């Protein structure tokens, strides 16, 4: 589904990604872990198409297409979804209208008929249950005055509505209490299928108690330095990132 080869990117003059290789197949959940500043969020942003980052090398194939050549909106319509670490507050834009527009833009792109009001409402009600989100939240302006947990739940709700093929969760667990974490994870687990895939970017192992990954990768200084199964996450949690750093230094010596 997604094949990243030797991806390099920088912001202004600072190189952040220094050659990432990663392949994700349908039905898989991959976790990217790593200390602060290792490039986790940069990878998520580059994949979603944020223009602040300049890709300086490598390639990304998404469902047989060159992802890096696509605009952010086309990536989304092709089935890529980024759950933002910091969802943006947009006063004056109703959450419901926004989601309806997004859903129908995607349908149009895929050559499907737009959902009418009744169909949309029905889908919305179903998905709302999934992430335990309240109607009153959706009638407000997009993320305006939402708590941290509400913003993250709204991200997962949008994901549920847009039914992406690949969802990237950028530190979705940050700032969440345990109940919100459980709700978010529960939403992800219910949306999981053999046809879609998830890339979970996180600093801590705790989210992975709820969203169990097939593969765990450790990102450090812009490179994936370790890959393994979910046990790697547990080892990291136990020993901390210093253990990886120490091991790496041993190797280079």
């Amino acid at each position, binding site marked *: 589904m997604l094949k990243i080869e030797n991806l390099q990117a920088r912001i202004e003059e600072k190189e952040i990604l220094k050659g990432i290789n990663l392949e994700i197949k349908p039905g898989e959940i991959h976790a990217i872990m790593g200390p602060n500043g290792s490039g986790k969020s940069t990878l998520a942003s580059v994949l979603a198409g944020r223009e602040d980052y300049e890709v300086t090398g490598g390639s990304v194939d998404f469902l047989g297409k060159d992802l890096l050549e696509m605009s952010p909106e086309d990536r989304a*319509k092709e089935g890529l979804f980024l759950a*933002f670490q910091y969802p943006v507050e947009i006063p004056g834009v109703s959450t419901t209208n926004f989601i309806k527009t997004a859903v129908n833009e995607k349908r149009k792109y895929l050559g499907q008929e737009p959902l009418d009001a009744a169909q949309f409402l029905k889908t919305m009600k179903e998905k709302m249950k999934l992430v335990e989100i309240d109607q009153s939240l959706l009638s407000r302006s997009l993320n305006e005055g939402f708590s941290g947990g509400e913003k993250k739940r709204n991200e997962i709700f949008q994901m549920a509505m847009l039914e992406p093929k690949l969802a990237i969760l950028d530190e979705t667990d940050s700032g969440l209490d345990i109940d919100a974490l459980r709700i978010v994870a529960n939403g992800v687990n219910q949306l999981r299928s053999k046809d879609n895939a998830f890339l979970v970017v996180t600093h801590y192992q705790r989210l992975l108690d709820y969203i169990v990954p097939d593969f765990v990768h450790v990102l450090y200084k812009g490179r994936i330095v370790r890959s393994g199964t979910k046990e790697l996450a547990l080892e990291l949690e136990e020993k901390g990132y210093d253990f990886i750093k120490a091991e790496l230094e041993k190797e280079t010596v």
Partner: protein
Amino acid sequence: MEVINNLTKAFASQENPSSPLHEFQSDNWKTFAGLGLPAIKHEEWKYTRIRNAYADNLVIATDAQLSAATLSAHQLPGTDHANRIVFLNGRYQAGLSSFQDDSASLVVKPLETAAGDEDAEFVNLHLGHSQKYHPDGINALNAAFAAGGVYIRVNKGKSLNQPVVIYHFTDSSNGYAFSQPRILVNAAEASAASIMETYVNIGGGESLTNEVIEICAAQDAVLHYVKIQNEGAKSSHSGTTHIRQLGKCLTHAVTLTLSGKLVRNNLNMVMEAEHGESHMYGLYLLNGDTLADNHTIVDNAMPHCFSNELYKGILDEQSTGVFNGKIFVRKDAQKTNAYQSNKNILLGDHASANTKPQLEIFADDVKCSHGCTIGKLDEDALFYLKARGISEQKAKALLLHAFAIDILDQIQHEAIREYADKLISERLSFDF
């Protein structure tokens, strides 16, 4: 200047020594003759070359006809039952005006009539008050032609069932047409009214409107005012809306500027009684070469008054927005709360915004704030929308509409609010 000769001739031809307004008009003519037209070296007119609008080919037409068909073609949607006041080339047209509220609530008559009947005392007391705030040539020039104006009284304790919609038609089919409407509103004690003004250039030529509307709101009055400007790129406008709070009351104004050549709006809230409340909202959505200049004044003379002001601008292509917001807090106006904000989004590479808050505070126990921003669309918000599959163009429209909506939401009359929203959505290619 040929234009001055033409104005002189026009003034002489309409002079009527037996009119009760004669003295007012001729005094003002003398003032105009002394001051002339404002020049850009005049600080108040720094960005707005109003003098250029007074070209030599300006025609001061009086004899024009407006058909019922033209009138209904330009009627604002949803206002079939509104009280309608029609001006043509700056002169009140009683025959084309119509009223739904009865005369126990609403009285409308030529200003000249009001100046000679039971309203004469009111007219003498209040007509021309705006000149204290705008002692310039064009305010005086309008006053010199005040005989064509209208007087509106909303009676004590009456709430109008319908808004008063004032249509200003300028017929430019015979050349560069000049209109000078004059309006005096008497919103009596505990009355409630909604007044709207809109401008239409018929004839396809150039036009210039130089308007003065003076509104007096008495104790416990509630007065809503909306000005919609969408006359097209060939029309210039300078207008003063002067609102005086004579007693504790609520006055609320919304100004929308969507097109025009050179547009200057003065809006004054003169708060002369304790516990007054005033609101001023404005939206200018400009493109092409349009220049829109909003000058506002809040004058707090008495304690415990509240005012809130928010003006927003979206400036595309090579348009120019000017905002100047003065707030005076006089020595006795303790416990004043006055808020002001002006926000601009520049879309065009050659668009510009000039904004200047100007607070003059002489009392020591007040809360006043002001702020202004000039910027581009929020890149983070734009990316967030695009990352959900919304196209760049649609995402921009969505954000701009969201930026504008809190001004539109201030329009109380539902049909007019929807109409304004439709105009703005069309301009932004916003469709939801």
